[in-house]
């Protein structure tokens, strides 16, 4: 018990003194997760929107696939990206394995189905009367689509934030493709795993506290968006 309390005290001291190693790890984590989220949103939001607005052959299959991929095991994604980027893999010539770029790729793949699927759900739950109202007021099909997207804005933002939650907490895939190299590919979750293995709990706990705080902030924001979106239902 004493060692746990001591670990917490040392952890708070690291946070309070803005330890350089700690800051570096936090910065890299936010950078990798942020870029991955931007990429998955750039692809996922339009994809989810199109699937939500348009009817086309195979749409049901794509929706099922997206929903299935929401629960993708990170280690499987890690393995898949590893095979793609390894020297003998089809993208091996790019030399991206064990770099932050490989971690971004793995996290983008993990976040994409969440963003796209939740974005699709947000679009299809907009009352069809909204689209009809837009038409009766003289909207073109494009203006109608924009109106529906605007109505789904809180749901779409919830999807993006849920994607951020996924990538921030991820460890398996980035450990495989990033290699957990100190000062280069070491992020919060991989550091926690490593330091725990080594028995150095203070840094692991400090990062755990920060990760939990970030997770709390993400969930509070998500809750606020969902609450705001509920007014429209």
């Amino acid at each position, binding site marked *: 018990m004493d060692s746990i309390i001591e670990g917490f005290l040392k952890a708070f001291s690291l946070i309070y003194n803005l330890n350089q190693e700690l800051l570096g790890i936090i910065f890299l984590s936010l950078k990798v997760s942020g870029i991955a989220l931007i990429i998955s949103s750039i692809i996922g939001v339009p994809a989810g929107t199109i699937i939500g607005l348009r009817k086309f052959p195979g749409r049901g299959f794509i929706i099922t696939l997206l929903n299935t991929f929401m629960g993708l095991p990170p280690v499987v994604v890690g393995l898949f990206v590893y095979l793609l980027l390894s020297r003998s893999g089809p993208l091996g010539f790019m030399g991206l394995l064990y770099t932050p770029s490989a971690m971004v790729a793995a996290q983008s793949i993990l976040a994409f189905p969440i963003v796209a699927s939740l974005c699709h759900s947000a679009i299809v739950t907009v009352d069809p009367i909204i689209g*009809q*109202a837009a*038409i009766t007021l003289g909207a073109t099909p494009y203006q109608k689509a924009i*109106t529906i997207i605007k*109505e789904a804005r809180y749901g779409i933002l919830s999807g993006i934030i849920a994607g951020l939650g996924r990538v921030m907490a991820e460890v398996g895939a980035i450990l495989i493709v990033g290699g957990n190299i100190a000062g280069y590919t070491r992020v919060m979750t991989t550091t926690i795993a490593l330091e725990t293995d080594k028995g150095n709990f203070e840094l692991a706990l400090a990062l755990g506290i920060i990760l939990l705080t970030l997770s709390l902030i993400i969930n509070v924001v998500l809750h606020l968006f969902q609450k705001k979106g509920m007014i*429209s239902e």
Partner: protein
Amino acid sequence: MSLRLTVSNISKNYNGKPVLRDCSFSFDSSGIYVLMGPNGSGKSTFLRICALLECPDTGEVNFSSGSNIVRKDMELRRRISLVLPKIGLFNTTVFKNVAYGLKIRKMKKQEIEERVNNALELVGLIHKKSHTALTLSSGETQRVGIARAIVIEPEVLFLDEPTASLDPHSTTIIEETISKIKEYNRLTIIMVTHNIFQAKRLAESVLFMYEGRIIDHGSKMDFFEKPRDERVYKFITGQMVY
């Protein structure tokens, strides 16, 4: 030159069940036309087809301006407006809801402000222009729906049961608004209602639909005082259960 609506031999089926059968009518002059009839007689479908929200299976809906038939679908849509029974307000302020039709027509900000204020003044909701539309009561929602439709100054305004499920006070406000719109704008209003008293108060002409057909039409006086069809007589005397 205002739009004239002519409907020729339109029919519509839903899942093989006929809803409209060979309906024809010409709305020749401006004024308030009221569509009446029992539930399931096809009134709303007829209105939605006239308002270009749905296509008929057979027959034609033509809008003409003078001697020219207006064929461009988008141009037509922007000269008419439909208020649905469920309004479908957008999750934003009352002002932005009413401004929607003007914004998509890329009007100038100042003109939008002026016209929206006038429309909200007309429906008695100017004091609520900054409120979130989804927090309004049913009566207020209906009035915003009407303001949103008239702000674009349509030449033909379609109203599908504008006072359904409203209390007498809200109904009176809506009816007064409809009368004012007609008075100020000289447009054609085509309205579906079940309310015989409302039809007597507002209508200039009445069309009666039964089992997907227009079985009678005429001026308000003729329709209510001298019904030509036994089914119309039963309906207006409350003998037809609907």
